[in-house]
């Protein structure tokens, strides 16, 4: 399936891109992060990252579907 990814902050810098479309067989959001972490050498373990699907916070165990927008949320630091 095809997924549309957006990256923010430290993940955007480590990926070297703000967004990309990927082809993947990862069944869950967690599997996708693990795959990308390995490919792009992300420094943050999944335990410190959250996932958002189609603009809402979601669970790592959520099954991915073709065409979704997926974003990984590094530890926040507003204020």
């Amino acid at each position, binding site marked *: 399936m095809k997924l549309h990814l*957006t990256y*923010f*902050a*430290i993940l*955007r*810098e480590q990926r070297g891109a703000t967004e990309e479309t990927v082809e993947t067989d990862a069944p869950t959001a967690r599997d996708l992060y693990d795959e990308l972490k390995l490919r792009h050498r992300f*420094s*943050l*373990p999944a335990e*410190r990252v959250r996932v*958002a699907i189609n*603009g*809402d*916070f979601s669970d790592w165990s959520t099954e991915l579907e073709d065409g979704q927008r997926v*974003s990984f*949320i*590094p*530890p*926040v*630091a*507003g*204020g």
Partner: protein
Amino acid sequence: MLFQIVHVPIDPSLLQRQLANEEAGACVTFEGWVRRHNDGHAVQALEYEAYEELANKEGLKILEEACEKFGILNVIAVHRVGLLRLGETAVWVSVTAAHRDAAFAGCRYVIDEIKARVPIWKKEHYESGSTEWINCAKP
């Protein structure tokens, strides 16, 4: 009730005028300013970045929670993104209520939850030339 991510300097007097309410006896405002020192580092500037779609949803949810929990009359929260210099205001939260207990508690709740939950990130630029994404160092 208003939550906003803005890309320009925050204008408190303009925002506060929207909170005018004859039933309000108390208004508590929190401002987060860019300060020179953090954890012993000399800071030159801060860079904020947000996932705006999600930040707006999560921000509004926090304001609704504050209204429900503390019985406040109104609340506005604005967070600036982009490059900020020393002394500039990064976040502005203002809460009105009939009495000060609710206004203080509501304002404190909103800033605490924004810091903990809203997808906004901060990169510190140090005088030494190095930079760091706050809270993202290796464990």
